[in-house]
């Protein structure tokens, strides 16, 4: 069995723009794979091609070339959509419906029977923290409430694959945390999550693998842990007063803050750092491979990417 829930191979999508109707590539030769059970983050600056990629996956736009699969079915095969949940970036829902009626409508598309749909709707409304039996229509909801409804409808069919476009958009910090918990819970259940987001901290906290897009192409792709680990560098954290200026001369950096000293050294010199720390009376807290932040990786990738 293919271990990949999503595959895109050499996808190219161009749009005609301006009065000259000149074609511009929104996505160029994009290839990516998402394994079953992973949380995958699609990152990139505005205009990088994230939304177009999602639209190609959902059959909303047709690529000029390339192919792909969703849950083992070719792109465009609607049967894959039975096991798919999608949260659009903004509240693109029928504003004249209440949350219950909206879920009832979307549930009908999945052929859910009434009793199951009713129970599932009530559970999801509870899960995302919306009011029950409210007469408020969706167009009267705040942005945060609409986003919560969006998450509820995306999970209505208990999907195997959830595609989320900016899931934390419009949510306050409490809402963002709740969404994060929902996503981690879905991962626990073995669901595959495809996430497009600008919130690097959110992605860094929950994603297993990422792809960074720039100008329609993937410039970095892989397991997040591997991408953030800098080969050959170790970060040694010590407890104690700031060391003298001339100490740890072999280190790449030495930073002291709040009784902790963080030293980045070549991995083969980690023992030297430990020896010097002992001689200075500093206590070892940890020594581990150096990880850069996703923000550092993102900025470096975008900077180095051909424009």
């Amino acid at each position: 069995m293919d271990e990949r829930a999503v595959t895109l191979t050499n996808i190219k999508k161009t749009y005609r723009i301006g009065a000259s109707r000149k074609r511009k590539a929104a996505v160029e030769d994009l290839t990516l794979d998402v394994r079953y059970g992973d949380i995958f983050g699609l990152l990139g600056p505005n205009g990088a091609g994230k939304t177009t990629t999602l639209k190609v996956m959902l059959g909303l736009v047709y690529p000029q070339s390339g192919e792909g699969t969703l849950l083992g079915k070719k792109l465009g095969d609607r049967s894959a959509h039975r096991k798919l949940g999608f949260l659009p970036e903004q509240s693109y829902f029928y504003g004249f419906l209440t949350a219950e009626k909206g879920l009832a409508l979307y549930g009908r598309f999945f052929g859910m029977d009434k009793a199951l749909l009713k129970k599932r709707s009530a559970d999801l409304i509870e899960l995302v923290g919306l009011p029950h039996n409210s007469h408020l229509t969706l167009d009267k909801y705040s942005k945060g409430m609409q986003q919560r409804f969006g998450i509820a409808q995306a999970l209505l069919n208990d999907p195997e694959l959830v595609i989320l476009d900016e899931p934390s958009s419009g949510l306050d910090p409490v809402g963002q945390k709740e969404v994060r918990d929902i996503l981690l819970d879905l991962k626990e259940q073995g669901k595959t999550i495809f996430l497009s987001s600008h919130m690097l901290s959110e992605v860094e906290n929950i994603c297993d693998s990422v792809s960074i897009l720039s100008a329609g192409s993937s410039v970095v792709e892989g397991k997040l842990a591997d991408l953030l680990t800098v080969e050959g560098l170790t970060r040694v954290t010590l407890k104690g007063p700031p060391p003298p200026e001339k100490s740890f001369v072999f280190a790449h950096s030495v930073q002291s803050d709040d009784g902790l000293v963080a030293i980045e050294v070549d991995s083969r010199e980690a023992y030297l750092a430990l020896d010097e720390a002992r001689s200075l009376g500093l206590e070892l807290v940890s020594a581990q491979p150096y990880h850069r932040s996703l923000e550092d990786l993102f900025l470096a990738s975008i900077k180095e990417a051909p424009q």
Partner: protein
Amino acid sequence: MRNVIAIASSVVRDAARKKVFYVVFLFGIAVLALAPLLPTFDLGLRAQFLRDISISLTSLFGVVLAVVLSVGQVPGEVDKRTIYNVLSKPVSRAQYFLGKYVGILVSLAAIMFVMGIEILILLGAKVHVFSPVVFEGVFAVFLEAALIAAFCLAFSTFAAAPITVFAAILFYFICHMKTGFLYTRMVTGTHGFLKVLSGAVYYAIPNLENFSTSNQVGYGRAASLHGLLRITGYAALFAAVLMILGFLAFRRRDL
């Protein structure tokens, strides 16, 4: 079919929310406003006049309603992007497109049924006549409106709303005039290639005069079952062709 019905029901609900159904009150007022214009001398003439003018008024309302209900269905959903959330579900574009049309037809049928009742009540109140034959006229108007709606829905898959409205007006007039001067111009009055082309256009467009029954209904003459089936089949054929053309344009469109 389930998806088609679900989408159709959302169209009806949206029409209700936009208060499109209030048009029946407007129609009632318009029909009542006709009452003082009735000739007072002959009860038979009064009934004839009322039936005739009411069906003509229904036709006017029907065409306007068909345009209003259908012109923004697809472009509106594409603009507001509500279409994303429908087509990301296991709903095909064909089901979506057909569902929209069914929803429009149901809305039109509901409104026109009430209009028919209003005409019946008016006839009973003003000239003490019970004329169920008006429903034949209303049915013919419904078929015409269904055709106009199919045209608008098909056209709106690739054109902006104002252009679709303009095209619908043009379509309406051409299809009403085709048996008149257009016949001589298009079929008999030209030569060579132009004659073939204009002839093809002539036969490719429906003749909306087939649905003009106000005169006949005015006289209180019921149509034969054969006649009703003929215009129903005629409308269904042209509506199907228009819907297929519209779907072909919509099928591969980027959203």
